[in-house]
C-alpha cells in the first residue's frame, strides 16, 4: 500500500473493458514526511476520492482483479481507502 495524494484525473474513452466506467485518478506517492516522491501514477477509484485527498493505493494485481470483478483485467493500482 502506497501513501499518496490525488493530483488529478484521466479521461479515457478507449480502454480495457474491465476499466469501463471506472474513475481513473492521478496519484502522487508521498514520502514519510508527506513530500511528493517519484512520478505520479494512475489508480482506479471506486470510493469517490476527491482532488487533493490523501489515499492509500494498493499495487496488488490479484486484489485489483477482484476489485473490478474481472479475472482477466490488467489493472494493478487501485485506491483502497481515503485517509481522514
Amino acid at each position, binding site marked *: 500500500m502506497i501513501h499518496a*495524494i490525488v493530483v488529478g*484525473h*484521466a479521461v479515457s474513452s478507449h*480502454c480495457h473493458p474491465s476499466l469501463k466506467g471506472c474513475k481513473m485518478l492521478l496519484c502522487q506517492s508521498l514520502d514519510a514526511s508527506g513530500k511528493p516522491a517519484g512520478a505520479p501514477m494512475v489508480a482506479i477509484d471506486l470510493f469517490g476520492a476527491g482532488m487533493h485527498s490523501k489515499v492509500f493505493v494498493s499495487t496488488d*494485481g490479484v486484489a485489483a482483479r477482484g476489485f473490478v470483478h474481472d479475472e482477466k483485467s*490488467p*489493472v494493478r493500482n487501485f485506491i483502497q481507502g481515503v485517509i481522514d
Partner: protein
Amino acid sequence: MRIAHVIGRVTLNVQDPSFKGGRWLMCNPVDAEHFNTACLTAPPLSKDFSLVAYDNLGAGEGDIVGIVEGAEATAPFDHDIPIDAITVAIFDSLHYQPPA
C-alpha cells in the same frame, strides 16, 4: 499504471510463438509537468527510459496511453505469454493539478 507517449512502433521478425498477431509500441513516459498539455501537443521526450509495450487497443504514434507493467500485463491472455508491459487505456485528456 504509468502515462506514456507513443513514439513509435516495433516490428518483430523472429519472435516467441505466443506473440503472434501482437502489436508493439515504443512508449516514452510523460513527465508530470506535461500531463495537462500531453493530449493536445506532443510532450518532449522525458529522461526516463522508453519501453516496448504490447498493444491490444490500437494505439498509434502520438497517442497518450496508460501502461501497466509487471505480472499483471499477462492477465488478459488465455495463454502464457512472456510480456512485461501492456497498454490498457488511450487517454483523451489528463487533468493534473499538484497541491500548492
